[in-house]
C-alpha cells in the first residue's frame, strides 16, 4: 500500500482545488448518483434493507473463522486450490509463483480493489509479465499511470478529451472524441488480450461459504471474460468478503447496484463454483483462490470491526463534502472517500496516513448513506482520538493542544489570551476578516478567511448582561424562561 506523506496529501488537495474542470466533474458525479439514491429510497423499503445488509455482514464477520474455513473447504471440494496470505507480500509472492509456474506472459485482470491495495500489478510487471486491466475505467487509469479516483468509477475524473488522447496513444492512431467509438476500440483491443491471456485475475465481490462460489458483480462483462477465457483463473480476495449462503445475498444485491451504479441490478452477476467441470465445453481449467488478511485480522474483535462489513458500493464517496472538494487521489491509496479515510489507516497504520482521519467534516452524511450501516463518522472521530493517544502529530500540534487544555481550564489565563489575540489580530484585520496570517494560523488563511476577533468576548458579554437576566443563576432552582 502506498503511503501518503503530508506533502503529497497537500499537493493532491491543492491540485484538485485548483482544477476547475475536476471540481465540476466531481460535483456532477456526486449529484448524478444522489438522484439514484433518492430513487432507490422511494422504490424500496430502504431502512429495512440496510438493517438486513448490516445483519448479514455483521453475522459473517463475527463468525469469520467459521465461514472462511467453510468457504475454503467448499472451493477445494469443487476442484479449486486455496491459498492463505497473511500479508500483501505473501499474496503477491503466491500469485507471482503461480504465473511463473505457468510461464505466463500475459495476464488480464477484472477490477479488483484488493489487488490495488497489495500492489499486485507492479510485482507482476517487475517480473516481466504484461498485466492488462480490462474494466474500461481501470484501462484508462492504467494507461494514465494513476490510482483509482473512485472505488466504483475509477476514471470518473478524466475528461473525454483526456481519455481520447490516452486511448489514441494505445491505438497508434487518432481516435474520435466519441464515447461509443472509444468504447468500440477498447472492445477490439481488449478482446485480443482476453484470447491471448494465460491467466485471468479477478477480485471477489462476495464468496458464498456454503458452496465455495465466487460472486462477481459487474456491468461491462469483463469479469465474465476474465473468468471464462484464460486457462487459469486466480481470485484474489479479502478474507472478509464472504456471505454464509446465496440467500444472504438478497438484501446486498438489492442495495449494491443502486448505490454503486444507479440501477436495480447490474448487467451481470456471475457465480463461479470451481474450475470447469467434467464435460464443460468452456471455462478455466484451474481455479486458484488467494484469501488475504493484510491487516484485517487486527481489526477483528475491536471497536472498528464493522468497517469489515463494507460492501464497496461507493455511496459514502458520493455524499462526502470533503471528497467533493479534494477528489480521490488525495487519499493516496486504493480506497478513497470516507471508507478510505477509515480503512486505510487501520490496514496500514495510523502513522503512515495521519491526514486521512482528518479528511472529513464529520457531518455524518457517510454514516447516514452507508449500505452496511457502518458508523464511519464515529470511526473517523475515534481514529483521531486514537492518534492523539498514540502521540501522533507534530510537536507544534501536541504543544498547541496541550496549551489549549491548560488555558481553557484557567479563566484568568483564558481572558488574557483573548485580549492578546485581539491585539495581535488587529493589524491583520481588514473588512471584518483576517485574510492573511503568519505561522500556524496561515495554514488556515491560505485557503479561507478567518473571521475578525470580536471586540468583546462572549464571556465579557455574559458578565455584563442586565442583572435581571442573572436571577436564578447558581441557585439550583428553576431557571426562568424568556
Amino acid at each position, binding site marked *: 500500500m502506498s503511503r501518503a506523506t503530508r506533502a503529497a496529501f497537500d499537493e493532491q488537495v491543492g491540485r484538485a482545488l485548483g482544477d476547475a474542470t475536476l471540481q465540476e466533474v466531481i460535483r456532477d458525479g456526486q449529484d448524478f448518483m444522489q438522484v439514484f439514491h433518492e430513487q432507490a429510497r422511494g422504490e424500496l423499503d430502504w431502512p429495512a434493507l440496510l438493517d438486513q445488509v448490516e445483519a448479514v455482514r455483521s453475522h459473517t464477520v*463475527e463468525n469469520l473463522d467459521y465461514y472462511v474455513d467453510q468457504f475454503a473447504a467448499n472451493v477445494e471440494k469443487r476442484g479449486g486450490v486455496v*491459498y492463505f496470505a497473511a500479508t500483501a507480500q505473501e499474496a503477491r509472492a503466491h500469485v507471482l509463483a503461480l504465473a511463473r509456474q505457468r510461464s505466463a506472459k500475459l495476464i488480464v485482470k477484472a477490477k479488483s480493489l484488493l489487488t490495488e491495495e497489495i500492489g499486485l500489478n507492479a510485482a507482476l510487471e517487475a517480473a516481466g509479465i504484461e498485466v492488462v486491466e480490462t474494466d474500461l475505467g481501470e484501462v484508462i487509469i492504467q494507461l494514465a499511470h494513476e490510482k483509482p479516483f473512485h472505488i466504483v468509477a475509477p476514471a470518473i475524473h478524466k475528461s473525454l478529451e483526456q481519455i481520447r488522447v490516452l486511448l489514441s496513444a494505445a491505438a497508434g492512431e487518432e481516435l474520435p472524441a466519441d464515447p461509443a467509438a472509444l*468504447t468500440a476500440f477498447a472492445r477490439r483491443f481488449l478482446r485480443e488480450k482476453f484470447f491471448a491471456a494465460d491467466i485471468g485475475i479477478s477480485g471477489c465481490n462476495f464468496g458464498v461459504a456454503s458452496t465455495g462460489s465466487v460472486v462477481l458483480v459487474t456491468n461491462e462483462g469483463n469479469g465474465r471474460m476474465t473468468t471464462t477465457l484464460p486457462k487459469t483463473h486466480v481470485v484474489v480476495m479479502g478474507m472478509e468478503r464472504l456471505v454464509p449462503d446465496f440467500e444472504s445475498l438478497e438484501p446486498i444485491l438489492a442495495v449494491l447496484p443502486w448505490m454503486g*451504479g444507479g440501477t436495480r441490478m447490474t*448487467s451481470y*452477476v456471475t*457465480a463461479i*463454483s470451481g474450475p470447469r467441470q467434467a464435460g464443460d465445453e468452456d471455462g478455466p481449467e484451474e481455479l486458484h483462490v488467494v484469501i488475504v488478511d493484510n491487516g484485517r485480522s487486527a481489526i477483528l474483535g475491536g471497536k472498528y470491526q464493522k468497517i469489515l462489513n463494507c460492501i464497496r458500493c461507493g455511496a459514502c464517496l458520493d455524499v462526502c463534502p470533503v471528497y467533493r472538494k479534494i477528489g480521490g487521489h488525495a487519499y493516496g491509496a486504493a480506497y478513497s472517500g470516507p471508507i478510505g479515510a477509515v480503512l486505510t489507516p487501520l490496514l496500514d497504520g495510523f502513522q503512515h496516513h495521519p491526514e486521512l482521519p482528518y479528511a472529513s467534516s464529520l457531518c455524518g452524511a457517510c454514516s447516514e448513506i452507508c449500505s452496511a450501516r457502518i458508523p464511519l463518522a464515529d470511526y473517523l472521530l475515534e481514529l483521531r482520538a486514537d492518534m492523539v493517544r498514540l502521540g501522533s502529530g507534530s510537536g507544534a500540534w501536541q504543544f498547541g493542544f496541550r496549551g489549549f487544555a491548560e488555558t481553557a481550564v484557567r479563566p484568568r489565563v483564558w481572558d488574557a489570551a483573548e485580549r492578546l489575540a485581539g491585539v495581535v489580530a488587529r493589524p491583520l484585520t481588514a473588512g471584518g476578516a483576517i485574510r492573511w496570517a503568519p505561522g500556524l494560523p496561515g495554514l488556515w488563511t491560505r485557503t479561507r478567511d478567518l473571521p475578525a476577533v470580536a471586540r468583546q468576548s462572549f464571556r465579557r458579554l455574559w458578565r455584563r448582561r442586565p442583572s435581571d437576566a442573572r436571577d436564578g443563576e447558581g441557585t439550583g432552582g428553576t431557571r426562568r424562561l424568556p
Partner: protein
Amino acid sequence: MGRGRVERAAFLETLRRQLHRAPGPPASPVPRSPATQRTLDDQERLALFVARLQALGVMASVVPALEDAQAAIERLALDRGWLSISCAAPLRWPAIADRWKADPREAPFGLAEAELAVAETGTLLLTNHGPFRRGHSLLPPSIGLVVPRARIVTGFGDALRWIAAQGPELPACLSFITGPSNTADIASVQVVGVHGPGEVFVWVVANDEVEESSTDGPADAGRA
C-alpha cells in the same frame, strides 16, 4: 501436515483468537430477510418482466410457442445476414442447420435458454455446464435468450433461493444477465457492448414448450 494446512490452521487460529471464538459453527443462525417484495399474479409478473426488459433496451417478445421464437430467430438471421449462430447442440433445430456453430468466438449471434427470469429486475439466469457454454451469451455482439413464462419469478431473492435449493453441486458458472453489457466510464456517457453483447433479444414462451431441464422449476423457488 503439509505447509498449506499449517498456513490455513494458523490463519484461522488468528481469526478465532481475535474474535474470542471457539472452533465450530456460529451460535446464532444466519439472519434472514423478512419478505418485502410485492405479490404478483402470473399476468402481472409477465407484464413487469417485459416492461423491465424494455426499459433496459432489450428487445422482448412474448410468443405462444417455442416454434414461434425459432421462426423469429430465423427471420432475424435472414434480415441481419447472420451466417452463423452459436448455440448448445441440445437447443438447435433443423431449419437453419447450416448456421449452427458451437464456438461463439466469431459468431454474430449467440442463443441460450434461461433457467429462470426475475420480473422485478428484468434478469435472466443461465446455468452454464456441459454444452451450455458461458461464451454463447457472452462473446457474440448480439444474443437471444429464451425463457418459458412459467419460469419467471417475482424477485431476485426468489432466484437466489432457487440456487440455494439446488444443493452444493452447482454448475461451475451461473450467469445472471440483466440487459446489455454497458459502461459509463467515458465521460459518464452510457455505451452498450463494451465487452459482452450490446444487443439482447428475449423471447418469453407463453405455453412453456421449451423442454424442461432436470432441475426443479421456479414453482419450488418461493419463500417457505
